[in-house]
């Protein structure tokens, strides 16, 4: 019988080993982005802007030109690149602290300008890199190292809903919240990431994919338990779905 390789590591991922904890969803999302870049045949004109956070080394994990932005500033850095080289594909990869706390102004204005860039936003409701502190997206009641008694909205505010905030911005071309917590959802997520990149290729504006992700280490769960927790808790607070889709009929 003749064998053929069916699924293997995409070319747009480098040989560098991920620095992420076992079971962390960053790796799954990295691979999906790389597969999309391979399939769209844009590897040689794509530039990645990594954030500060657990994925600070993301620029090393992609076999692409890349850089790291100061904390929260990835959308501004990507804007500068895209304006200087409008025919390249530029994407940012950001976590919840980077995008929804320190970088709130940058993401809102990039979205509002309809900047032709793509943002992959990893929301795991906690600060991973610095050791489990409260994130802007931490759930109410969630215990973190800076909310030892649980997130209290009176004191700590409410979880920020990024997609809901961005969905009324006129410059947004594609906006979706999804998870990668089952093989079916992973396959679906890839289609969405592809749409987001296509929105950029077709120059119809800003695109963002929010991925609800696990942080088994800081949540204190096994990777499998973490997925269960995500489905039972995070999805309730952050409903999944397509918030904006202007890609229809554009080619």
């Amino acid at each position: 019988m003749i064998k053929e390789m069916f699924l293997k590591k995409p070319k747009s991922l480098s040989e560098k080993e991920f620095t992420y904890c076992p079971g962390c969803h960053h790796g799954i999302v990295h691979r999906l982005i790389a597969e999309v870049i391979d399939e769209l045949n844009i590897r040689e004109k794509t530039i990645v802007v990594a954030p500060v956070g657990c994925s600070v080394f993301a620029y090393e994990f992609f076999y692409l030109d890349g850089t790291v932005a100061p904390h929260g500033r990835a959308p501004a850095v990507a804007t500068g690149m895209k304006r200087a080289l409008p025919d390249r594909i530029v994407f940012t990869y950001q976590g919840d602290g980077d995008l929804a706390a320190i970088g709130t102004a940058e993401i809102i204005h990039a979205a509002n300008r309809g900047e032709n860039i793509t943002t992959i936003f990893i929301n795991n409701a906690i600060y991973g890199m610095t050791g489990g502190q409260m994130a802007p997206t931490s759930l109410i009641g969630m215990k973190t190292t800076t909310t030892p008694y649980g997130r209290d909205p009176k004191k700590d505010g409410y979880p920020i809903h990024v997609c809901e905030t961005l969905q009324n911005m006129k410059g947004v071309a594609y906006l979706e919240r999804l998870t990668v917590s089952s093989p079916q959802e992973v396959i679906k997520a890839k289609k969405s990431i592809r749409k987001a990149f296509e929105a950029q290729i077709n120059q119809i504006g800003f695109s963002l994919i929010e991925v609800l992700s696990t942080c088994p280490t800081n949540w204190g769960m096994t990777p499998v338990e973490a997925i269960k927790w995500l489905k039972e808790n995070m999805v309730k607070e952050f409903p999944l779905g397509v918030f904006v889709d202007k890609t229809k009929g554009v080619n």
Partner: protein
Amino acid sequence: MSEKLMVKGTEAIAEAAIRAGCRNYFGYPITPQSELAEYMSRRLPQVGGTFLQAESEVAAVNMVYGAASTGKRVMTSTSSPGFSLMQEGISYIAAAQLPCVFVNVVRGGPGLGDIQPAQSDYFQATKGGGHGDYRLIVLAPSTLQEAVELTYLAFDLADEYRNPALILADGLMGQMMEPVEFPEFRDLKTLPKHEWALTGCNEREPNKVTSFNIDPYELEKMNKVYQEKYLRIIKKEKRWENYMTEDAEYLFVAYGTMARIIKTVVRKAREEGIKAGLFRPITLWPYPYEELHELSEKVGFVLTVEMSAGQMIEDVRLAVSGRTKVFFYGRTAGVIPTPNEVLEELKKKIGMVKV
């Protein structure tokens, strides 16, 4: 060179940047330099460039980071409080060794301060401002024609050394009008090619632009590269002007607008038989320490005049190294010392020294 135009300082710097090949500008309005952004917004589209008004100085400096990482010529301009906001990005840009040009049209501070001319951001410009061991190439023009020339030069120096350069002006330089001749447009094809730039890894290995390494020994290696570069800049790029220093018995040290006023003071002093001279640093970093040291050995004292409470004077003292007395005169908060006021100060110091 073309025929003379009557321009504001901000316009002079903007047009000079465009002629130097800058096609990307990101900025945020702040008085007294908003005309620079306005000029760019009008002019860049005419030459196929990009102007973008950012949501903040923080965003603007990071847009500069992004554009500079593609190897294109890029600049931003701001005034004191805005420059403070940019420090984060400047530190990253210096560490990532990205060429770009900053303009700080300094106004009275600290805090919100006022909108009048000042020189009180000297420390911030020359001693850091952001975190880490880094340096900016700092150029301080004294006339608008010189502002044009130094802006043009700033882009070349930035490219040559892969280091951000700063034009340090003050509000008066930004707002005053003078006739200026502009250099020819730089043919964009003649601009240096940057092998390191992020342009998409077409037929090559991917390029990475970074400002960090979490291994302390590796980060130290990066730092050594910066420091070696800074030494090369110190060796090659010091610029200064001696004005009537040949026979000077008393030496002024001043830069920018203040140096220009001091030239008047020197002429007035000499009219009264006082042999004064002026040493004017043009590069504030690298500072011309040795050149000033040499001059200071021949004079009765050195009088540093600044539109600040005394910042450059620390470099003057380092240069003079105790060889002679170093005095200071300055006004703050946007008050410009007049020639007569400074002349009186000179006479007072002469009296003090003689007693």
